[in-house]
């Protein structure tokens, strides 16, 4: 009986604790320490109709490029601190340099540079939704076309 009378107060206390927990979790998410950058290198071709099973999660994104076949060449993930620089080796002797710049409105601003040897191919700054990606494609590779999926998630 005593417990029944206290139940509403306990429930209210529990709810307030939840709010506090939610706030602290939110604060942690608003000030992430670093960014996990994942580069997925894909070869797009028109030779056959094969679709690499490893790319299943990206099927809808890749199909919009209208190539007939897609093959995963390499996956690479690295944790990068804010304003830190990280390089990724890309098939074909290329290098992708990534600099996470800021996190605002659940979006990660990434500065990306693709080079071949010392020669820059493209420089871009992109704001990606947290845990989202964008595609950088076009360089020729092994008779097909190289497609890079660049994704980022706060840590």
């Amino acid at each position, binding site marked *: 009986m005593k417990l029944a009378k206290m139940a*509403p107060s306990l429930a209210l206390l*529990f709810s307030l604790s939840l709010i506090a927990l939610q706030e602290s979790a939110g604060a942690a998410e608003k000030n992430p320490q670093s960014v996990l950058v994942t580069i997925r290198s894909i070869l797009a071709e028109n030779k056959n109709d094969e679709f690499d099973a490893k790319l299943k999660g990206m099927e809808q994104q890749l199909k919009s490029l209208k190539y007939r076949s897609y093959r995963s060449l390499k996956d690479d993930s690295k944790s990068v601190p804010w304003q830190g620089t990280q390089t990724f080796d890309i098939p074909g002797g290329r290098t992708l340099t990534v600099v996470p710049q800021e996190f605002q409105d659940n979006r990660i601003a990434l500065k990306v540079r693709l080079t071949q040897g010392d020669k820059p191919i493209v420089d871009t*700054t992109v704001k990606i939704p947290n845990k989202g990606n964008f595609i950088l*494609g076009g360089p020729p590779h092994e008779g097909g076309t190289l497609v890079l999926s660049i994704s980022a998630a706060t840590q």
Partner: protein
Amino acid sequence: MTNCENLRESIGRWLDGELSPSESAAVEAHVAACAECGEARRQLESLQRALTGVLVTDAAPIEFIPFWREVQRRINSKRAWYEDISEWAREFFTAPRVAWGVPVAIVLVLAVVSLDSYFPWMRFGGGRNNFASVESIDGHGRSVALLRENDSKTTVIWLYQNEEGENETGEDGSKSGPTF
């Protein structure tokens, strides 16, 4: 407690006719024999007479027929809708229910607010822009296309071959672009 004290408690009930015949006979016999209890009886009788007189005097001018008519009218009259709602609300929103309702409402609000965090793939923030936005691009002399694919909410930066060519396999540059 003495016999007199016991009996005095019964004198009032005896005067009101609430005792059994045998109890009444016992009280009556005692009151007749005991001077103190006889005095107590007289005082009670006197009080009873006084109260009865007051009630009869005050109740006499009350007109009961119009009173009951008004009561009946109020019972039979149709109440306004807001009176029904007000009465329902008074009965429904009892203190314990309100006490439970507040934390339940808080938990529900938190759950709704947190859905995006726990199930980002469900995209609860329907109107939110899930495209990556490109702030700047420098193709270093190459043609660059920026495309947005609505179905998969994908942003694509596409590099076309320049005329000098950097084609590794000597492919025709025109083949390197997708047909969006």
